[in-house]
């Protein structure tokens, strides 16, 4: 398979690249991200350890104008694209500073939409492969601690469901991944409940397994489906008074 990972410097992205490199042979892996200094070493590491071609590419989801050119230059074109970029941001700051709020919305939603439309058009034409996009359980109900991020991920979720609907006739798959708490750079220093927190390694293995099973929506780990079911069933009248 030809796999492109966009936002490949995240801990989850690196683990996904390793998992697909180990499990899906022969694989050709393209890692794309802003910070090439870090990424080039990761690409070498993966190509040596798993005996697969792996290349690092400069990619900025917020530089919308560059995205069509970036995608057109990929040779060979990917048959699978994993969208990993995201920005949690600082909620308190976002409430007062439009630049921070905009950055959260642009990265998690607008950048994703801009890029996935380009990918979708190509895959639809080639009638092959598909898209795996990392959403978040934070997008299933707004909470005061991260509702800008949650809202952007919620919008991404609706976009993906529409895209799935559109691409289905062409046989192109779209998988929405909804991870719960992950131990990553994004959450470093946050007081996460240990029992509910998953390592990026484990999450990558679960995502790969869900992809194999051709799931449309995958909660990572699966029991987050039931946690979120309960959280979504709490009436708004009650929910607004809670500190979850």
């Amino acid at each position, binding site marked *: 398979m030809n796999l492109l990972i966009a936002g490949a410097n995240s801990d989850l992205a690196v683990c996904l690249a390793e998992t697909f490199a180990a499990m899906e042979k022969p694989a050709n892996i393209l890692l794309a991200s802003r910070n090439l200094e870090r990424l080039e070493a990761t690409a*070498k590491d993966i190509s040596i350890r798993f005996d697969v071609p792996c290349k690092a590419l400069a990619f900025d989801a917020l530089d919308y104008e560059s995205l069509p050119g970036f995608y057109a230059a990929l040779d060979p074109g990917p048959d699978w694209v994993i969208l990993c970029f995201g920005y949690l941001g600082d909620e308190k700051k976002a409430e007062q500073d439009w630049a921070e709020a905009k950055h959260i919305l642009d990265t998690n939603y607008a950048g994703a939409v801009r890029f996935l439309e380009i990918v979708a058009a190509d895959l639809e034409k080639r009638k092959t492969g598909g898209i795996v996009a990392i959403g978040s359980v934070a997008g299933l109900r707004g909470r005061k601690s991260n509702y800008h991020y949650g809202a952007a991920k919620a919008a991404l979720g609706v976009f993906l469901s529409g895209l799935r609907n559109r691409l289905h006739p062409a046989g192109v798959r779209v998988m929405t991944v909804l991870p719960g708490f992950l131990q990553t750079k994004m959450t470093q220093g946050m007081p996460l409940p240990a029992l509910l927190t998953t390592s990026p390694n484990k999450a990558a293995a679960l995502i790969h397994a869900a992809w194999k099973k051709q799931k449309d929506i995958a909660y990572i780990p699966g029991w987050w489906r039931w946690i979120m079911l309960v959280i979504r069933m709490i009436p708004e009248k009650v929910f607004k008074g809670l500190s979850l």
Partner: protein
Amino acid sequence: MPSRISGWGRYPWIEAQIAVADTTSAARKHLLAWPDCIARGAGKSYGDSALSQNVLQMTPLNRILAFDADRGEVVCEAGVGLDKLIDAFLPKGFFLSVTPGTKQITVGGAIASDVHGKNHHRCGCFSTCVNWIDLMSAAGEIIRCSPQQHPEIFQATCGGMGLTGIILAAALRLQPIKSAWIDQKTIYCRDLDAVLAAFDEFADMPYSVAWIDCLAKGACLGRSVLMVGEHAGCGGLSLPEKPTATIPFSFPNGALNSASIRLFNTAYAWVHRRHAGESRVSLDQFFYPLDGIANWNRMYGNRGFLQYQFVLPRSGGADGLLAILSAIAGMGMGSFLAVLKLFGPANRNFLSFPMDGYTLALDFGIQPGLLPFLDRLDRLVARFGGRIYLTKDVRMAPWMLKEGYPLLDRFLQVKRSIDPHNRFRSLQSNRLEIA
């Protein structure tokens, strides 16, 4: 935000500023912004050598950068774990040339400690298989040093406890192997003379190590089980899946006391006496038995523990071991894990620990009376011409360092030349006045 950290011995704990080095530029940025700092890898050094008010966390720099199968040479960043190297290269028929008793340490840490393994008598320290090191100096420059290029910096950095600079990357020579299995022979030795004779008898074996019952007294003083091994010629290159046990919480302080240790040691000696002989075990079982028990350091309770490892030169070493073992057995301060090894000749690195002779490593739970007792042992070690391993040390005094490491002045010359303002320092270097 300051974090609370300790070494593997969980003694002492300190508050430290931790910055993550995920790129070389990030490492440089933090280094230059701080008045002083120390690099930290996996945090498996027992004592205070990677503790400081400013700590540069190197584990995110964990990529393998190149591999040359013809020469068996791998180039990797300093934060790469030995476990990652094994996972990557064992299937290709390569293994570390020198490995300590845990694979959960980083390459940078292995170099800074110049670690040794069960094959020191044949292969020397970790630095023997280091082709070169990229070191970031106090000024933020990257110096490539090797036995040929800046040899003095190389000799100061291997075993230099991170005090010459930040180890960023290194090229290592791996050894080719045919199997993930080890043919092991276990020999029960009834006393110290017997085990020292057995070491000599099996000196041709690539790997050897002895567990020693340090509570045995009288005629049984030095009762040991010697394990020797060599790489098997067949059996495949993949390791069996092995479940990991976890010590989920700290044991009560004092759970490992002289009674429980005596019970364990007697049982261990008895089992091995009955099952002495030949067997085939996996690399993991042979080299890393304790890695199968996650967080085993919690067995020593919240007070933590320390490891006391010393080496005595071969001449007079047997008498020295006898004197020290008698002192330990007499105090009743038994060690749960006591490991005896025969070392080969010392290398040229200024602060590298091994020398031709016998090394004994002992774990002691922190308890009243322990520190004065170890000071007493220090004097015995010094009297017999030995020294203490810096990687395990958390308590020795400056005089003991000077006594044991005659090349300390040459180390300091090199350190001062590339770190004139003493920016690389740790709790250990402050305590030992290495500046």
